[in-house]
Every structure is written in C-alpha cells, then in structure tokens.
C-alpha cells in the first residue's frame, strides 16, 4: 500500500491502491483487458494485508463471490470491462435486492461484443444504469484522472458501505491505462457499514430516516435469511403486492433521498459560462483543454464534469441549461448521456452532441471547433 506522497502510477493501479486504502480485503475477478492491472496488482498486494485475491472461473462467479464475502463481513471488489460487466448483471440485480455493499469496476472498452478489446469507450453509460433486471437506483462514479482513480474508488467503497448498495465505478480504458501523478493523502475518510447492536435486528427494514437497515454478517447468530426473492424486513420471503412494493420503493428511495449527498460534479469556468460542455471520464480531458483555449480567446466557455453519473445530477444540469445559451455533450459512444441531458433540459437551452466511436477520444480541436460553431 502506498504511503502518503507523490507517485507516478497507472490509473488501474491507483484504483487498486484506493481499494486497499478504503479497506477492501477481498477481490474476486476474471481476466479481461483493459482491467487486468487491477487484479494483477491486488494479487500481489492483498495477501500482504491479510486480504484475499481469488481468481474465479468467470465474471458471474466473481461478483457472486463478492456478494457472499460481503455478507461474511468483507468489503469486496471486482473489476472487469464491458463484456464481463454484462455477465455480472443478474447478480448485480441480486446485490440490489439484498442490499449488499460491493464495488464493481468497469474499465470500459469499445464494443459491441469483443469490439476493439484494448481500446477505450464510454459505451456502458446505460449498461451501468439499466443493465440489470428489475427496478433499482444505481450509484455510478466516473474518474477522469489517475488521482480520481484513487479518490473515487475510496468514495465508491464509502457510498457502498453507507447506503448498503452495490456501487459501479465506471472508468475507461484510457483512464485505466494512463500514467500520471498520484498524490496519496495522509488522511482519508473511511466509512464502514452499520452492524446491529442488540440481539435482534431486521436486516431488510428500518425506521431510520436514511432507510438503510443495519447489516449483520454470517456467523453472528442472527440466523440470517438472505434471499433475492421478495422479502419482509426479517428476510422471510413474502410475495404479497404490499411487501414487494414497500421493499422495492425503500431500496430505491434510500438512494434517491441521498442524491444531494451522493452527487458530485466538477465545475470548471461554469459560473458565467454562455456555452458549456458536459462530459465525464476520458472525454472530459479534451473538453477541458478546449474550454481553456476558448477562455483565453475571451469566449465564456465552461465545463461541467460529472463525477457521479448515476443518480444523474439533474439539478446541476438544469441550472446550467437555464444559464447557458448552448451545451455540448461530449462522449465516446453514439450519444447516450446526451439523451439524459435532453430529458432533463429540453426546451431550456440548445443541446448539441459530439460523439466518437472507434476506440478514440475526441481531440481538443474537435471539441473546440464544435463549441466555436455553437457560440451564440
């Protein structure tokens, strides 16, 4: 584990380091490019801290092992890319239903299918939100630098533990493989799940306004019934319309209520911006350069960079739409986030979309030219 200080490391290593620092002591995964360095690094580091690295037979087993370990008391993580993330979706839905804290890292690559297996993309924007079956709310974070591969991984664990929910860490092949400065801070906040205090507990229901129940672990004598079936606050299966409705609504509402606290955006030159870019991850980097260049030329350009993709930061988008004359959504897919921006901000501002396929980021000049064209 890196001591506080400055380092030059790869994004995926920073992610693995963040996990260790956050208290992750079980990693279960299956090899896939461009996420491999996370598993490789943790196979070396985890055992030094009495943690476990286990290489499972596939991604389905990887997330399953994480869920099993979480109920045994672990703070678990798995890391994959788009195809493996698809395989995890059924058990991800299970993690939502059983309110199991864990972190799933998706270092996105270019699809569909095997696509360009080593090249980055941002095509899993909706897979992170809607990939699994059923109704649930997703917490998904997206880093744009090596530093955030570290910091947001820690935050992902904290959110998972605090809200008893799976958290998606949506990185991409570029950020995962970039090597740049990482500053490891001296102090960080680490949040651990709330365990039961008394002899009895209702692991799937609570009167607490947070709507997050206490989470016991196996072997403590609580005679836990953990099931993906509709269940009462005790865990006992119950398929009645009322129990199911209350359960699913509580699981959704605990995230929706906490949205202001979960929400995290970076505002760059936004205060007086007349035109603005909305971007995340790798595509936010050329957007940043383009905004700075336009500012140097006296154009009031700004960048709203999303660090939390889900819940979608609607208030920030709405505020920007009411302020800017035009917004440009930059992303490495055929136009996914722009649909969300349109949903939230339609009729309030002009919305344009800059997309890239082919496993490449848009260039600074791509974004610059598009903003120039949009400039009122």
């Amino acid at each position, binding site marked *: 584990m890196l001591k506080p200080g400055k380092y030059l490391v790869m994004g995926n290593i920073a992610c693995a380091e963040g996990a260790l620092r956050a208290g992750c002591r079980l990693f279960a995964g299956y090899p896939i490019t461009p996420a491999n360095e996370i598993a490789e690094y943790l196979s070396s580091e985890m055992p030094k801290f009495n943690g476990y690295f286990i290489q499972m*037979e596939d991604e389905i087993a990887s997330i399953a092992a994480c*869920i099993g370990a979480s109920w*045994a008391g672990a703070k678990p993580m798995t890391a994959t890319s788009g195809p493996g993330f698809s395989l995890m979706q059924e*058990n991800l839905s299970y993690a939502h239903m059983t309110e199991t804290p864990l972190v799933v890292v998706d270092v996105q690559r270019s699809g569909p299918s095997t696509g360009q297996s080593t090249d980055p993309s941002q095509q899993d924007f909706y897979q992170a939100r809607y990939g699994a079956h059923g109704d649930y709310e997703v917490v998904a974070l997206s880093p744009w630098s090596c530093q955030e591969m570290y910091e947001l991984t820690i935050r992902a664990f904290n959110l998972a533990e605090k809200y008893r929910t799976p958290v998606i860490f949506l990185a991409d092949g570029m950020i995962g493989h970039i090597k740049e400065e990482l500053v490891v801070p001296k102090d960080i906040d680490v949040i651990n799940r709330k365990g039961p205090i008394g002899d009895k507990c209702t692991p799937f229901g609570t009167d607490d306004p947070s709507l997050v129940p206490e989470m016991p672990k*196996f072997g403590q004598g609580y005679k836990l019934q953990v*099931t993906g079936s509709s269940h009462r606050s005790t865990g006992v299966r119950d398929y009645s319309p009322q129990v199911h409705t209350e359960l699913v609504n509580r699981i959704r509402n605990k995230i929706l209520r906490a949205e202001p606290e979960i929400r995290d955006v970076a505002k760059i030159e936004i205060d007086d911006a007349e035109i603005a870019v909305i971007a995340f991850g790798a595509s936010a980097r050329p957007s940043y350069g383009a905004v700075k260049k336009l500012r140097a030329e006296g154009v009031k350009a700004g960048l709203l960079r999303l660090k939390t993709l889900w819940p979608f930061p609607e208030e920030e988008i709405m505020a920007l739409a009411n302020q800017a004359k035009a917004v440009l959504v930059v992303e490495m897919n055929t136009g996914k986030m722009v649909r969300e921006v349109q949903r939230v901000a339609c009729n309030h501002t002009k919305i344009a979309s800059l997309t890239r396929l082919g496993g490449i980021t848009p260039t600074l000049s791509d974004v610059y030219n598009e903003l120039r064209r949009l400039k009122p």
Partner: protein
Amino acid sequence: MKSLKQLKSEYIVENLNAFCPGCGNGMILNCFIRAIDEMGVNLNDILSVSGIGCSSWIPSPHFRGDTLHTTHGRAIAFATGAKVYNPNLRTVVFTGDGDGAGIGGNHLIHAARRNIGITCILVNNMNYAMTGGQIAPTTLHDAKTSTSPYGNPEQPFNIAKLVAAAGATYVAKWTTYHVMELTQSIKEALNNNGFSFIEVMSQCPTQQRNILNIRASPQDLPYRLLDMLGESAYRADRPEKENYLYAVPLKTPEESEKEIAGLGYNAKLVDHITLGRVVRVESEKLVDAKSQLKSLQTVRRLADHLEGKFEVGVFVHSKRLEYTEALREVSRRAKGE
C-alpha cells in the same frame, strides 16, 4: 436419538413447508439436521447457501441458521466468497441437478478442482421440477418431459463421477431410500477438509409421475418412487444379492406377474428406473429360471439384476490441500514469513 419433533423445534423455522406432498427434500433436510445434531455442530457456525429450484428451498426458508438463497446455479460461487473470507463457517451448498449440473455446472467443477472446504448436497430429481418438469442434464434418454414430448434426445450426466474427476476429496451418491447412509455421508462430508459432494437421487411425485410414467394414486406415488430408487440403486463396494432377475412384460405387468407366479416363482411387481414396471423374479436356480421365463408369452425379455441401475456409495474419500489453507500459504509468502 432425538425425536423428529425435538429436531424440528431446534432446527426448523416454524409453520413453513414449501414442498409438494411426498417430496424427497424434507427427507434430505431431516438427514442433514440429524447429521449436524449428532455431530454437535454449533448452529451459528453453519452457513447454508442455495440457488434456485426446489432443492434450494431445503435450507431457505426452513433451516434455522444463516442462509443465503442466491441466483440460479451460482450458489457455490457465492459460498466460495463467504468461505474464503471466513473459513470458520461450515459452508453447505444445497443445489439441484438443473441448478448445480446445468446452469451451475462450471462452478461445481471448479469448486471441486480448488478443493475448497464446502459441502455440496445435490438433489437429483432428473428434471427441472419447479418450472414444470423440463429436460435437465440428468434426464434419462427417451424420457418424456414437458420439453421432450417425443422422448429426450439427450443423454444424462453422471454427476458424481464428473465431480470426482474434477478433484473433489469426498464424493458420495445415495438416494432418499438410503437415509441412514446419507446421514452418515453428510457427517463424513462435513468433517472432510476439502470439497465434499453428495448426490442424492430423490423422488418428485409432481413431475416424475409423467417423466417416469409411474401411474399411481397421489397417496401411493411417493412410496412407489422411493421403492423404485431403492430397487434401481446398487453398491459396488459390497456384495449384492445376485439371485434375481427382471422380466420385462410384453403387455401388462400384472399379466406377466400372474403367469410367472403361476409357475411357482417368487415374483413381485416393482418399479425400475430404466426398465419401468417389471416383475422381479427371485430364484436359487437362476440359469434354469432364465431358460424357462424367456419363452413365456407375456414376457418381452429378461433383464440382468444390475441392468440399467445406477451405482451408489462413497466413491472418493481422500486428502488434498484445501483452498483456503492454500490462500493462507499465499499470504505467508507475500508477507515474507
């Protein structure tokens, strides 16, 4: 030995019974709790993990201990994570033939390969019972199921042999007819430091009635099926009776039985897993009996006493490095100890 009532009050969640009348799952649950009771295992140390399907309901919601009721086929993978993180948990996976050998077959062989200290009890009822009796990877060739109305074109797995080949250090196969042997086996499996696997052939009155074409009243069907399992199993590790054969009837079994009994033989009607309803004929002079019986008008053919049966018993009981111990060795090396 404790009474069933005592065991129920200690180990079973009250007022719950999720199984069809005559199901074998209750018997397997009975064997399991008898085994852990006789072993004196602390209930808090047991984690039961199951997947989807009838057998996955054996622990959850019935068992009064920690239970993890997971997704279809993945129970062993969930159990692996829990066992790795807390090796003190006596982790038991309940699964079925479709859950464990169909959709979850990959996890099964890899758990056996790793030799992780998990006990897996796989209930084989030869079909996907909960969903309506479809073809499973264990359904016999030619059996008529809800997805093989013209007969099953596939061939069944021999799951116990598969798991043995994959490296499990305890492998046994029993039926719900063998409750004493099964209880003993569960104890041996729980005491084995490695991956333990017990396949239990079980009766399913709801679906096997059609699949095995056994026509009986709802009251009689469970016994008929249980007797069929007992009749159709043999042990290779001890001498079996050899003084009998089966007469496969040409038309009705009753007609054949009457004709054979009329000749003075000890004949009775039995159900056989692959031959169907047949006449079991016992004789000390088997060679003579064969030549006499094969020419009877009501007999289609004669079958040897072991024909079409499956082997039960303990197939593997060995020692090999257990996975969580291997992980601890990895940890020692990483720390330079």
